[in-house]
């Protein structure tokens, strides 16, 4: 999230930051595609429904050998092929953030990332933040601060917070609001989410 910067003031920064977020995602996925080692269908011959290519996907430290259609999104593969239903389909167009996962430690919208693009990269989903039987620090902070209501956006919020804190271990409030503005919460638990990120940052100190 190199492009993500704190705004000088708090108000109405969301539009900008969401654009930034999307732009960053675009860059991220491009890198991923270039880095991809998976055999892609030969140029000029578009993949057809049902054409499968092999892929090894590293999710939460575990290597999964799969066969995927080149156009399948990472979100689809995580949920439907690997049974990891933490990441949620909220809008499936890279706006709401419910599908956020970490790719090499950076938050990415898995609905806008092809599974093939994630080849060779470390994917972390909310299921992978546990420390053994214990909650991870960000997860613990979300529990302590009641940072959810219906919970549907929560896995994405937790992952975004994790990504933000990995890059900026001690963000200010403006940085948190900015950094978390790519994740929508319709219940409006934002105040608690911001406090949870602050809390997690404190735990990490």
């Amino acid at each position, binding site marked *: 999230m190199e492009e993500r910067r704190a705004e000088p003031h708090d*108000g109405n920064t*969301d539009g900008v930051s969401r654009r930034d977020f999307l732009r960053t995602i675009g860059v991220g996925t491009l890198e991923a595609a270039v880095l991809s080692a998976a055999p892609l269908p030969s140029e000029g011959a578009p993949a057809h429904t049902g054409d499968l290519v092999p892929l090894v996907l590293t999710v939460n430290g575990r290597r999964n050998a799969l066969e995927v259609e080149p156009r399948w999104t990472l979100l689809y593969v995580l949920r439907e092929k690997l049974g990891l239903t933490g990441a*949620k389909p909220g*809008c499936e167009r890279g706006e709401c953030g419910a599908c956020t996962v970490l790719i090499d430690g950076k938050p990415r919208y898995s609905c806008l990332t092809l599974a093939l693009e994630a080849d060779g990269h470390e994917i972390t989903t909310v299921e992978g933040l546990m420390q053994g039987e214990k909650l991870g620090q960000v997860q613990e902070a979300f529990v302590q601060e009641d940072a959810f209501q*219906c919970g549907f956006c929560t896995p994405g919020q937790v992952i975004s917070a994790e990504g933000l804190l990995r890059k900026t271990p001690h963000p200010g409030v403006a940085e948190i609001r900015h950094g978390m503005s790519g*994740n929508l919460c319709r219940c409006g*638990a934002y105040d608690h989410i*911001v406090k949870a990120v602050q809390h997690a940052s404190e735990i990490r100190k």
Partner: protein
Amino acid sequence: MVDHTPHDSAWAHVTGEAVYVDDIAVAGVPLVGYVFSSPHAHARIRSFDVRDARSIPGVYAVLGSQDIPGENQLGPVVKDEVCLASGEVECVGQAIFLIAAETEDLCREAAKRIIIDFEPLPAVVDLPAAMAGGMLLGAPRKIERGNAAAELLRAPHTLQGELHTGAQEHWYLETQVALSVPGEGEELLVYSSTQHPSETQALVADVLGIHRNDVVVEVRRLGGGFGGKETQANHPACWSALLARATRRPVKIRLFRDDDMSMTGKRHPYLIRYEAGFDAEGRLLAVTLELHADGGMATDLSFAILERAMLHVDNAYFIPDISVVGCVWKTHLPSNTAFRGFGGPQGMAVMETIIDRVARALRLDAAEVRRRNFYASPDRVTTHYGQVVEGDRLQTMFARLVASSGYGERRSAVREFNTTQEFRRRGLALTPVKFGISFTTTFLNQAGALVLIYADGTVLVNHGGVEMGQGLHTKIRSIAAAELGLPLARVRVNATNTSKIPNTSATAASSGADLNGMAVKRAIDTLKERIGPAMAQLFNERYEGELTRAEDLRWVRGAIIDSEHPERMMPFVQAMQAMHLRQIPLSAAGFFSTPGIGWDKVSGKGRPFLYYAFGMAVTEVEVDLLTGGHTILRTDILHDVGDSLHEGIDRGQIEGGFIQGAGWCTTEEILRDENGRLLTHAPDTYKIPTAGDIPPDFRVTFLDGVPNPLAVRNSKAVGEPPFMLALSVWLAIKDAICADAGGEPHFPIPATREVILNAIEELRQLTAEHARA
């Protein structure tokens, strides 16, 4: 009972383990269900052919209205909404065919191969056109007191105007979804994201032509509801049920976000005409109101919503003479539906705009004008429908909030800021909320529960309410644990299931905890009545001397204790084992119906509400005069939750309701083209609040020391009332742009940047005209 324990599902939420309908694993891969819907707002279906679509390998079913074995009807109150269109379509997005296939791609391929010939018909796609065409959805309603028309003529001052309030998309993060799993014979299990499992069950049975005892609807949790899943979750449930029945396979329908936004109803847009008479002190003397709602293509809950709007036009104010007329109009749009506040926001918005205008006309501070108009003892306490409001609660809250928010000093500071800035203006507004708690359709105020105690001393609570993020299960669990004197860890709340609790009401009207909490308490009371004498007998067999009486037993600290002989104590686990051995039944049903309420819809009089929830907010905003953009600087809220059942949850409801309301008041704009197609059908064009939009200084306080004896454990409902506190954002923006102008701009809801800029320009012209004159 103040409770700080974590949310019932906290662990599940942060680990991703929480199961929503789309996460449920069933044996075998469910077929994908897909809806082929109308591209026209109004058209006749001349002919169709689905044979080609059905011939695709992997496509299991393509169903039309002719394939429905039962009744082709989904209307929840009035039977005017078909399940699948036949002959005619009445809105863009209306379902015509259902497809089940192995994959989504096959569904889309099948949809492409459906041949259908439409004859477009004239479509009415906005409220003014519906009103001009006389397209009433039902008879108008009226509530009045005194003779407002006559008093308006006598009033020293009058004003009149029109207020438009916009639609609002629910934007639950989890779109509408249902998974139907066929069982033996007629059995069908439906996992649905519904706020109203019993109605979903009833409609599934009706559509399939089977009985309710064949259908089980189960709801673990919703990824948000906000009213949008009160009736309109029935549709995907019935559709998936039809496909499951036809294919004998599990079928899941999950609407894509854009389809969900295009196909489902919204908060009703209202056009409200008003005239108000007032005296020189700003006291309202008489008000006449005409409320016109855009109902969409079917009745749905429009009249209940209209009713609540009409019952809330007074908001917190005593109006001696008042006349309220309400109409619902039919348009060729998806049927508008319940949304948090349920008409309350529209009703209150018009009264707040009237008070705001009165204050500006008299050059008085709007907060002071509000105070002067509040309900107050002894003679200004009766609403226009005849229910009495608690004497001076509003005055008390006003005094506290004005002091705690520093309203007076900040008013001066805002004035100072505005005289020194060229392109920025600040505004301040205090708005109250008085919200009636109960379903206005009186019989709905009932709930059931089933409490099971197992012989290992653990407790499983079933009740009819649905968990949709409002923390209902957490509150219910706390209530059950407190009533049984157990730690929370021993109590679990089950998924809501129609085979456990029959004939429930929707989880709506902020009533979930009030009704279901009482039903759970009643079930536990029954268990205690059974267990008490058996435990007394047990103690009397073991201890010599004075006898233990059942009424002296206390259920505290994980044990049952004789309060007169504290040494006679048995831990809960052992006690339940003993009761099991003594053949005492350890499960009980509980039922609750709200006593003493009821009202006459025809005369518009009675006591529709058990009690009122009160709140008050002060919001300060800054507006950029060049862009029309605004920023909330600070919000102070004082809210009356009685004795809070759970502070964290109640605070979350207040903050979240306020933020959702702020979205409705400012950025959330629904736009359609002239053919009735939704233009704002995704989050890139429809703007709900984000983390950057919350007040950076957000102070939420509970009014303390006000137990509410009318609800479970002296609490008060909190789901909807805070939504309307956001009217303070709307009016603070108006206060800012009117700071140095004479005149009243058009200022609808939502006050988007465009609205704000237009208002600024309108005021500039009005000021220029004044200067010339």
